[in-house]
């Protein structure tokens, strides 16, 4: 058993030394070829990342593209099948559409709701409340809870005899509804996931937005006040535009993160008919069913969806994100 650890320790030290040697070698070679002192140092400092980019990003990225045109189960060498994987995805695989719908619905509902809630909370916290540090700690707490613990906790709270149903019990009784088991109910599984996610990310977004609010110069408000703008006018015309870069950041990260939900779905199995998260589906295709080629094609579609969403938000940002000239420069 000790060998498990020594093996990895050896690998770890070996690769660390390797990266160091490449850094030094890069510097030496660049200097020999007459590259300036500053540039040579710069290049050799970023060598670890360059190596990582080639080995762990660009290489796998292209390999995944190639695999997506093949049938590959690891045991036999990949077999080129052209666009078959993509054709199958869009024409034959009904589960793909269920999963896609589930993932998109989840993100489209979860992200804006979370953002609005966080904005409201951050605004409340920005009203010169007493004990701000304490409030912020409190609201941030769910974000530091490991996803595994969050998922198990909510799975437990959403069971038939769980806390949520107990709290809802008076209403359920009033309308004569049986206690639902949320995560196994085909209609309730999505709302349940969304409620859990809102609880989880809410605080992190609140803290980021609060920092953004605190960064808005006070004189802007004073100027608006002098101009006779009321509280709401000031909020709409000063706060929101000044906060928009932060909102934009939270929105982008929220979309990317929520489309890629993975771990929690492993702790909470949703009914197959309701669908699951795209990343879980890709994992199942690749590692449970051994369809590496098909899974790679799904991964590519996932990348395109993320790019599409990001692009849409970026495009629309011209209309609603306000950048101060100088602020943008060092960012």
């Amino acid at each position, binding site marked *: *058993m000790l060998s498990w*650890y020594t*093996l*990895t320790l050896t*690998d*770890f030290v070996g*690769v660390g030394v390797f*990266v160091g040697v490449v*850094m030094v070698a890069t510097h030496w070679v660049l200097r020999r070829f007459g590259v300036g002192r*500053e*540039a040579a*140092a*710069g*290049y050799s*400092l*970023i060598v670890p990342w360059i190596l990582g*980019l080639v080995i*762990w*990003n660009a290489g*796998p*990225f292209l390999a*995944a593209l190639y695999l997506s045109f093949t049938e590959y189960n*690891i045991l036999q060498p990949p077999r080129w099948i052209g666009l078959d994987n993509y054709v199958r995805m869009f024409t034959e695989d009904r589960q793909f559409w269920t999963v896609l719908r589930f993932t998109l619905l989840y993100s489209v509902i979860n992200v804006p709701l979370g953002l609005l809630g966080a904005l409201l909370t951050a605004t*409340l916290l920005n*009203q*010169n*409340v007493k004990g701000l*540090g304490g409030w912020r*700690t*409190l609201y*941030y*707490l*769910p974000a530091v*809870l*490991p996803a595994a613990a969050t998922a*198990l*906790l909510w799975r*437990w709270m959403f*069971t038939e*005899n769980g806390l949520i149903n107990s709290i809802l019990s008076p209403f359920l009784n009033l309308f004569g509804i049986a206690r639902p088991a949320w995560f196994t109910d085909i209609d309730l599984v999505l709302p349940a996931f969304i409620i859990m996610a809102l*609880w989880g990310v809410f605080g992190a977004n609140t803290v*980021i*937005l609060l*920092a*953004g609010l605190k960064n808005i110069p006070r004189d802007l408000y004073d100027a608006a006040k002098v101009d006779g703008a009321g509280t709401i006018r000031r909020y709409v015309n000063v706060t929101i535009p000044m906060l928009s870069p*932060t909102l934009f*950041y939270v929105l982008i990260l929220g979309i*990317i993160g929520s489309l*890629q939900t*993975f*771990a929690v779905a*492993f702790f909470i199995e949703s009914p197959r008919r309701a669908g699951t998260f795209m990343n879980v589906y890709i*994992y199942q295709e*690749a590692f449970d069913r051994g369809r590496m080629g098909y899974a790679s094609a799904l*991964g*590519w579609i*996932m990348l395109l969806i993320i*790019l599409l969403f990001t692009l849409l938000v970026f495009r629309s940002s011209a209309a609603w994100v306000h950048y101060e000239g100088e602020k943008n420069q*060092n*960012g």
Partner: protein
Amino acid sequence: MASLPAAPGTPGGAPADLATVGPQAGQRRRGGNDPDRPRTPLDWVGRVVVYLLLAIGGAIILIPFFWMLSTSLKSDASLIAYPPQWIPNPVVPGNYPEAWTSLPFDRWLLNTVFTTVLAMIAEIFTAALVAYGFARFRFPGRNVLFIILLSTMMLPGILTLIPKFLIWREVGRIDTFSPLTVGAWFAWGPSYIFLLRQFFLTIPREIEEAAIIDGANVFQVFREIMLPLVKPALLAIAVLSFQGNWNNFEGALIYLSTLEKYPMVLGLQFYGATLSNTAPQWNLMMAMATVMALPILVLFFLAQRYFIEGLTVGGVKG
């Protein structure tokens, strides 16, 4: 917090901004003649509403935590009592040892500590080197490379997962801890690089230039001057990195198959899957979930300033 060196940099720089995020920042700004101080009865109503809403939100946040702890101390019989038992009766602390010894949890803890420590060392060290390179040295292609770095954050991890798996399989390292740790030498956290670069940018160049004139080389300047100056940022990254590696589920799931090699998070998932469907022992589950969360919660209470700094730097200065 007081024991830390003052954040370096110009007033407009990131560390200075981060300082305003700190807990005392609010108070500092609230001077004697605060225009927002409530005066009229209507203002007082507003204040009450604000605190009321915050308290409701706080309760929504806290109740699940309390429920996790309370469940973990319950007997099997009182698990599904109605109305729900907030304070367990009887209190059963024995759930913890019972769950802990039913599976190799101590081995899983050791594995988690082992992989987390190794990955953290390499991840933080290389992120600092790369960030320093991007922040301080002019070289052709620097901006293009930095944009590439930022855009790798958008790459869905699942896409490159299969080829990465094949690489580790090729070098015979499936079902070892190596895939979870060794990759960290390649500066695998673009967001950490970004965060550190923002900090390095705020440090006046004169400080390094003086050292270089004194004959120090790049690594000496980096280690003896730059690293101490960005210590708050390093600590911010350290807590994020700890959190990320401690909770790394995806990697463990894909690369590890031997039960005794699992980290806590995978063990917890295995434990959850073994629970019976008819009478799941949620008390034992919640006990182990609490144990898994405990180190991070403790760290958060000790070093929350760094959690918040790491979180906010991208959003506010990005």
